[in-house]
């Protein structure tokens, strides 16, 4: 069960309040700055520092490497500008 776009847009790391990487297939959220991972259980992100897992160098490298090959998805621009506009270019 994947987290929906709205939920993703409001989630932040509980400690540094920064963004997280969401690996849907591994059911987890990851903070690449603090190298902490948080589980997503039954579609509910468990954003508790006490339950976070600090990853080692090899795991951090694996997750970073995944980004280079993965398709990065997201909600995209919320209000796309008019595709036809050129006057303000």
């Amino acid at each position, binding site marked *: 069960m994947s*987290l929906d776009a709205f*939920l*993703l*847009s*409001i*989630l*932040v*790391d509980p400690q540094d*309040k*920064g*963004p*997280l*990487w*969401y*690996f*849907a*297939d591994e059911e987890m*959220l990851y903070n*690449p*700055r603090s190298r902490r991972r948080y589980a997503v259980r039954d579609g509910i992100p468990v954003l508790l520092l006490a339950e976070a897992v600090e990853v080692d160098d090899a795991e951090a490298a694996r997750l*970073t490497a*995944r*980004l*280079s090959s*993965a*398709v*990065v*998805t*997201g909600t*995209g*621009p*919320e*209000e*796309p*500008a*008019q*595709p*036809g*506009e*050129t*006057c*303000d*270019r």
Partner: protein
Amino acid sequence: MSVAVAGPAPLRTIFKAYDVRGLVPDELDERGSFAIGAGFARFARAAEAARRIVVAHDMRISGADLAAAFAAGAESERTEVVFIGLASTDLLYYASGVLGAPGAMLTASHNPPEYNGMKFCLAGARPVGEETGLGEVLRGAEVTLAGLRGGIPAPRAQRDGRDWFGEFADHVRSFVDISSLVPLRVVADTANGMGGLVVPAVFAGLPFHLDLLYGELDGTFPHHPANPLEPENLKDLRARILATGADVGLAFDGDADRAFLVDELGEPLSGSTTTAIVAQVMLADHPGETVLHNVICSKAVPEVIAECGGVAVRTRVGHSFIKARMAETGAVFAGEHSGHYYFRDNFGADSGIIAAVIVLEALCRAKVPLSQLRRPFERYSDSGELNSRVGDTSAVIDAVARHYASHGGAVDRLDGLTVDFGDWWFNLRSSNTEPFLRLNVEAADARSCAARVDEVRRLVRQADGAG
């Protein structure tokens, strides 16, 4: 397998339909630029296995630092950077075409000094817009930004030693027959933008007398904003033309990809008139070929194209639509009312200075002042673009379409609504970002044009009130 970014999305608001534009440093700083550089490199590698990109920046105060950060971001993705340094946007497109490499231009076009941003292209100057990869660049940038800790590195790339300005100037001059040129007196107002480097480089090999106004590069735009679409910004150029008796004036925007012409009486030419003049020249050299014009261009444009034996193809407004249609139709040239002119022999990319030198050549050959040369191309009276605020733009457009369909107008929906009655026509388009409708009307003369503007606006108000 997919990865998403959760949480704050500070870069999202600065990604527009075709480019990136934001306030420095609040919306766009060096960390953001680094992240976008990484996102673009990742996108370019996925799209066309690119291992090398070309990067340039304009004269904005933040330009050099943001460009360096962008280059470092691309290098962090193991992508080689050809770093041109200062350039105009059309020069960057040219470099992308020549190198066969994706490109990024750090510029905010004509926006105020506090802004900066980026325009992107794939190899061969192919467009990158909202529907052709900009979203992927953004998502890649968000991922990188989320992972940034501490400071960002300096780029490895040094400024490229190649004489890009000299090469680009040769390329621009290749569009004209220099032996046909006479020593016209030309005033160019480059508004302290990149035209200050490009225009003298191009004119150095031409027999014109160049009078350069505000040629020094200055990202604070001390004299006037670098937006020639605003008549206020043409005041100094017009005054200089009249004071010196110059033959023609050229006005460029900040990144010098758009050029506007002003005649010897100080009267600016519309984008439609310039499109028609360039179309005539291009068709003389390329008989029977296709020329594109957008739906807002004057009816005089397709008329001139047909009279010159060319095939006129109407397109939606906008950079990526035009470039896509150029590739499909093999068109030799395309023009937009907004001052963008695209050339097949320029990798299909737009360049204001190429259009400008083509009109100058036409002027030399015609041996008449520009105020006369323009006349046969100006056949109708137009309203210019008029914006009105309404509740539901598409409901209003539909109601107006229904009204005119029952009154015998030829209705088409290529871009918004166009209704043609033969002796007058209008186009009504919506803006997705704001509840605005944009109206353009063209009629036989100024009086009937004003009357038709009133008529369409009344219908818009009625439809809006009924909604």
